[in-house]
């Protein structure tokens, strides 16, 4: 076999989670010193593939994987991260795994310290050896030099700029003498542009030492700068493998998004922008950890279904959460002529805005309470509905709650044993409908829906989307739908705003090309597209 030449050879890799196929027939070969890019949207299977490569327990506790992995020509059984490390596979983490109070040397050599025997250790064992600090510093220096880092090896981690920390992480991997493959998982996400450039340079230096690199990112221009070969994943399948010279950013963008336009559930309305804007957002910034929004301005028109799309972590989720007062926000939001007070959920709800959270189980539901109590809760608290008054005291009007719950269960077709069933026992799609029902009880004029189909099976997804379309058509409700799934946005929205790096990158029509969507989501300029 000729695959001796490959340092890493993954063949026919597949993975199923409880009958749900997330990865199939992935082939990946790396030569020593090759930089190989992997691109794909969220959920394309990148992290599952890496979990397999590193023998993470989440893979093995769910029945293992299919296919074969060969390292340097020998078939490898990677059952734990330790196995991966022993085989010479290293990883530079997205979140830094460094101890802030230790020096760079100590961090690099952590648990692999060089030691000298002393009197005590001769008696009680090797764990009591003295550290050979000089030798350790020499090794650390060598690793740092490989990266052209001039920083002192005895400096402590705390206080270093973020970019440097990343380099220390890399140096730690380089210091492992058997290192053959190094994985970079979205390494540039936390870096500034110049730091990112430094990192790309460092990757080239590392590959010159004969170490193969797997580079996972969604920034296409970075891929094009350093990679020789590029693999594109989509929906758990390998859709293409390209040499750098044979492709370009546009093709990659198109491959990444794919022409998976779902069934169009409703014809986009072209004339929505003729209506007066009902919600104007000006310079909105939201401090939502992991989904920060900076300076977003957007007009939303009456009666439209507008989508907010983009990759995870870019800030699309933050927009609705900020306006609804769930995360600290700044800026100006005017709805229907009235200024919405930010950082105040009550005020937003009082002004006929309602929100269905992306975190269905964490925020959207009282999992151990009945369907009827879930549906009625917000309306009770915010509008005093379903309450009987006795002087200063109130009592829940259980009959009214029951009646309303029965009506909503019928109207939204919530499949359940009855209004008293607890929501934990419902399927994802039906849970989502309960969330929507709760929002509707406020009789909103505008509904924010975030990730309405996350974690819901395919059949139910369509039903949830259908529900939203019906609400828009029947009641003229304005819907702002945030979703990571571009296909579903394209199947129901009139317009789609793409958020990258906390800003609106642009507003597209659902009928625009895949290239346009792919480029905009990857944060590339596409003047010539």
């Amino acid at each position: 076999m000729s695959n001796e030449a490959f340092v890493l050879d993954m063949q026919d890799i597949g993975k199923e989670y409880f009958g749900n196929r997330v990865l199939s027939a992935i082939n990946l070969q790396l030569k020593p010193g090759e930089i190989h890019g992997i691109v794909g949207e969220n959920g394309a299977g990148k992290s599952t593939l890496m979990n397999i490569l590193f023998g993470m327990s989440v893979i093995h506790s769910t029945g293992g994987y299919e296919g074969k992995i060969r390292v340097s020509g020998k078939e490898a059984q990677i059952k734990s991260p330790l196995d991966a490390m022993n085989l010479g596979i290293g990883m530079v983490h997205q979140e830094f795994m460094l101890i802030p109070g230790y020096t760079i040397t100590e961090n690099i050599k952590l648990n692999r310290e060089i030691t000298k025997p002393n009197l005590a250790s001769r008696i009680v064992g090797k764990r009591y050896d003295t550290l050979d600090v000089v030798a350790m510093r020499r090794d650390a220096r060598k690793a740092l030099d490989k990266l052209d880092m001039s920083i002192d090896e005895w400096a402590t981690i705390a206080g270093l700029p973020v970019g440097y920390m990343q380099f220390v992480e890399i140096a730690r991997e380089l210091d492992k003498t058997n290192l053959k493959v190094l994985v970079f998982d979205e390494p540039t996400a936390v870096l500034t542009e110049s730091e990112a450039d430094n990192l790309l340079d460092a990757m080239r230096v590392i590959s010159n030492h004969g170490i193969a690199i797997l580079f996972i990112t969604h920034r296409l221009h970075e891929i094009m700068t350093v990679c020789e070969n590029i693999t594109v994943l989509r929906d758990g399948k390998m859709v293409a493998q390209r040499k750098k010279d044979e492709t370009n950013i546009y093709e990659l963008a198109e491959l990444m998004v794919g022409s998976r336009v779902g069934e169009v559930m409703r014809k986009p309305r072209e004339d929505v922008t003729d209506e007066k804007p009902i919600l104007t957002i000006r310079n909105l910034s939201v401090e939502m950890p992991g989904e920060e929004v900076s300076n977003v301005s957007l007009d939303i028109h009456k009666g439209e279904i507008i989508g907010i799309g983009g990759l995870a972590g870019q800030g699309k989720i933050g927009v609705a959460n900020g306006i609804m007062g769930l995360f600290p926000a700044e800026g100006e939001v005017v709805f229907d002529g009235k200024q919405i007070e930010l950082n105040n959920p009550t005020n937003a709800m009082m002004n006929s805005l309602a929100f269905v959270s992306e975190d269905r189980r964490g925020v959207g539901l009282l999992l151990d309470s009945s369907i009827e109590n879930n549906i009625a809760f917000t309306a009770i608290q915010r509008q005093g509905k379903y309450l009987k008054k006795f002087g200063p005291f109130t009592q829940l009007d259980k009959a009214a709650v029951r009646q309303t719950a029965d009506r909503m269960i019928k109207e939204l077709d919530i499949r359940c044993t009855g209004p008293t069933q607890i929501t934990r026992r419902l399927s994802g799609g039906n849970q989502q409908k309960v969330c929507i029902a709760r929002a509707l009880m406020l009789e909103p004029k505008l509904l924010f829906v975030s990730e309405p189909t996350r974690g819901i099976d395919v059949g139910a997804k369509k039903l949830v989307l259908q529900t939203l379309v019906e609400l828009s058509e029947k009641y003229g409700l304005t819907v702002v739908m945030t979703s990571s799934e571009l296909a579903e946005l394209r199947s129901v929205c009139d317009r789609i705003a793409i958020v990258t790096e906390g800003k609106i990158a642009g507003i597209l029509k659902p009928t625009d090309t895949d290239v346009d969507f792919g480029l905009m989501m990857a944060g590339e300029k596409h003047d010539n597209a």
Partner: protein
Amino acid sequence: MITPDVRRFGAVKDTLKSFGLPRIIIVVFLVLLWAISMFLEIPFPQLLSDTLVRWGMNGVLVLAMMPSILAGTGLYFGLPIGIICGLLGGVIAIELNLVGITAFFAAIAFSIPFAFVLGWVYGFMLNRIKGSEMTVATYVGFSIVSLMCIFWSMAPFKSPAMAWPIGRGLRVTISLADRYEKVLNNFLSFNIFGIMIPTGLILFLLLMCLIVVLFFNTKTGIALKAGGENPRFAQSSGINVDTMRIVGTIFSTVLGAIGILVYSQSFGFIQLYTAPLFMGFLAAAAILIGGASIKKATILHVLLGTFLFQGLLVVALPVANKVATLGSLAEISRIIVSNGVILYALAQHSGD
């Protein structure tokens, strides 16, 4: 296909499961002790009468656990705080030389303002230590008991019924014999099959339960429960969860204050100084035996748990005395059961 039979069997299994293994063991143990007591010719009606009295006298203290659990601050190990407020009300009523049912309700009225203020302060503090409420609460309970020991020993009360004959401060136990001893127990009480029913006591307990049920059906009560079950859900509906936690703590403190007065009138004595120290644990054990967890509690858990726990204690003592002459056996079994159940509940919680 799931046949109706299978489903019914599943429902039976679910019911048994929700009843819980510890409760099944306790019920079996209690029935076993009852059987043994009959065999040993210990008068059963007497046992049942005692159980009913202790059920009524401890019930409100156990009920005090409920608002706290539902508000999300866990078991109310700060119960001594409420108890101390109740005791304050109790001694003030004596100082004013009140007697009878008036004295009892006056004591409650005097204690509630204290319970409000201390409950508010305590609730405010619990909001600063989210996540370790129960640990801190235990120590707060201990600390306030010790602090009040100093107060009791210096309190400027003059009534000869309570003060030491010479010097300052209050006695350790204060008899209520001429005050309001058993005012509730004796109200409308009657005998049936040799069992004495403390009607007033039980009615009062049920009245307190009714108030709690009504509260949890008010707008505030609903918000409080939601805040305890899922704080982020409540926040997204514009609820100030911290305020709700304070409301729950105040409510628990007030119930604790009323609870100790009910307890004292039945017991016939007000016990000061270190007496309230472990009452929090006993009440916590009772509600847990009833089926509550540190996140969920119902009136049924309160009533059932108090009955089982107190029933066990009542029957354990005479049985133990007959079986073995070891004097402290009943006390030992009480400590094992109560602490064992608390341990079980906490271990269950960390499991999920």
